[in-house]
């Protein structure tokens, strides 16, 4: 492997990521399954980095799942996205920060469509106006939240209390990075580092002291795929795709997977349980499973946030051995306690539970 070759490609795919004043849109999947992740993003940006992030409670789903599931037409989804832009315009924000890769893909697809077919933009303006009486400005930049963390990765590293290394040996952790397909595979120019060798997560891992693994199925889809997942009988495809990735990364014995897509995080985490149930196989170091973390969770960990506040206990593959390796103290007693001291429900069948 020649690192300079990758650097050459990364240099070709640099996008404009604004410095401040973001209009934040949430992810349906993430705020349901990894709510701590969304929360910590806001905390890091606002508290650690002192940025202005605006959130409008009136923003809705982008309807991407319905769009990819063939139940929402393109005109409709354009109008929904236009409404989000309208909310941003109303609040005076020009930079959108999107937490979801599906939404990010939808936004980029719509922006590209408007660029190449200006009449669709006009049509959308008309549709939105007729439906809601709203008008909007096309935002100046579209950033995925991982782009933003990427931009501030070195600043985060400077503030870090831990790094991605084994505390006893000092060796960097072996990290698998996984990009959501819709992050850059549709429009490589919107992703940091492009589609073939995306840099967005690699940059974070390297800044934070980890080693990135480049394994043969790195580019492969996690298997989510809306139609695969939505129809129960098709989930075998989804499962098969995830297993293919796990098997390909297995020889490297990775310590963790870092992903920037809510769907990928969710499926690569949950399918480890399902594969264990069906095939009896658990991947990872000592067969302890491979924890799948979002980039905000990783950022949160190294900045010293409490793992239970990040919501790591709600991953199917538990990170306790990983935390131990990184030297992060996590009080097992507080694992399933809410802030007010009430006991949270304890998930069954956790790996490393």
């Amino acid at each position, binding site marked *: *492997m*020649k690192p300079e070759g*990758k650097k050459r490609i990364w240099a070709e795919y640099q996008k404009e990521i604004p410095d401040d004043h973001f209009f934040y849109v949430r992810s349906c999947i993430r705020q349901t399954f990894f709510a701590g992740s969304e929360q910590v993003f806001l905390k890091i940006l606002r508290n650690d980095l002192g940025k202005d992030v605006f959130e409008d409670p009136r923003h809705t789903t982008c309807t991407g799942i319905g769009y990819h599931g063939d139940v929402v037409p393109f005109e409709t989804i354009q109008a929904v996205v236009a409404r989000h832009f309208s909310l941003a315009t109303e609040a005076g924000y020009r930079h959108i920060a999107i937490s979801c890769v599906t939404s990010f893909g939808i936004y980029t697809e719509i922006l590209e469509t408007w660029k190449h077919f200006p009449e669709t933009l006009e049509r959308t303006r008309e549709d939105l106006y007729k439906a809601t009486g709203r008008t909007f400005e096309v935002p100046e930049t579209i950033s995925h939240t991982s782009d933003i963390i990427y931009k501030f990765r070195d600043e985060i590293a400077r503030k870090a209390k831990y790094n991605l290394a084994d505390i006893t040996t000092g060796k960097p952790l072996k990290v698998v990075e996984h990009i959501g397909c819709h992050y850059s595979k549709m429009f490589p120019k919107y992703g940091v580092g492009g589609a*073939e060798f995306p840099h967005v997560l690699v940059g974070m891992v390297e800044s934070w002291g980890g080693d990135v693994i480049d394994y043969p*199925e790195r*580019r492969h889809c996690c298997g989510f795929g809306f139609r695969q997942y939505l129809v129960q009988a098709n989930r075998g495809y989804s499962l098969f795709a995830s297993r293919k990735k796990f098997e390909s990364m297995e020889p490297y014995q990775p310590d963790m997977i870092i992903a920037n897509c809510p769907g990928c995080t969710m499926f690569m985490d949950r399918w480890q349980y399902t594969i264990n149930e069906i095939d009896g196989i658990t991947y990872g170091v000592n067969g302890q499973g491979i924890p799948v973390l979002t980039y905000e969770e990783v950022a949160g960990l190294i900045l010293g946030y409490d793992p239970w506040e990040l919501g790591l206990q709600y991953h199917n593959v538990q990170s306790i051995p990983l935390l131990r390796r990184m030297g992060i103290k996590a009080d097992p007693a507080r694992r399933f306690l809410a802030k007010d001291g009430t006991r949270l429900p304890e998930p069954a069948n956790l790996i490393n539970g």
Partner: protein
Amino acid sequence: MKGTPKHVIVAGGGVAGMEAAGSLAEMGYRVTLVEKGEDPGGHLLQWHALFPDRRPADEVRSYLRKRIVHHNISIITRTTVEKIKYHPGGTVSVNLSGGTDEKADAVIVATGFQLFDAHRKEEYGYGIYDNVITSADLEGMFNRGRVAKADNSVPARIGLIHCVGSRDEKVNNNHCSKVCCVTAVKQAIEIREMLPSCEIFCFYMDMRMYGPYYEELYRESQEIHNVNFIRGKVSEASVNINNRLVIKVEDTLAGRPLKMELDIMVLMVGMEMEEAGAKLAEASGFKRGINRFLETGDHHYGNNLSGVRGVFYAGTCTAPMNITDTISHARAAVAETVRYLDGR
């Protein structure tokens, strides 16, 4: 010819330029051969052996070198032709890099082609993975007499990927470069002869064995040299934990995806319009085809005509061709030039 000999400038000292210059000089014209590199010779300088008869490239090189040793020929190297302009009255002025101008009675454009830059097919990892090389790199290995991996070990399996930068909308090249298929077959045989225990796989979309004895070479590669052919375009390459390349392709004949480990992956890079030639065309107002090569006056019977008086095309600046066709094309350009000069 009477009086002072007429002057022809040949832009480009590759196969076509050398042949054209030689032919013109032989006929008594004064020729100035402008070459951008250190020496005339073009891409042939890098090549080890030629298809389909596998004769050493050196033999053709020395033929061409002899061709341009003539008192009528003056050679300007490390110089490109930047602009060509016809002036009413019959003079063609030529701007050379470095600011000098030349005047001539006619100009033959033989700026040739450039090999596709394999970096542009990012998914193949050229410049990233240690053992991804191009067909030209492989010729270099042949010249050095040893085919080896980056760590100097002997490869056990080599894959040759056809149509890299050809017939590929994604890199804006819809054209076929014509010579890569047979080059792959030739190189496959050469590797087998150097490393008899090395398995060879050619990944092709179509086998375009258009020239005489090409198909025979293809058959020989299967029958005698046990070269394997898999029909399918490689979609991506990566490396595994042993730093062996892993490629993904659809075996379109089986109708199933296929995964294979390789020690070396050779990209059969295609032909594109040469950059200096493209600039020249832009500055001089030469028309270019949808394949970005120079568009000739008539595809059937005016294949050396430029559309500009006094300017003629020779060789691969008009389209991908093999050496045989390039030499013929250059001779035809000379014939057109002479016809033009005599008719004035």
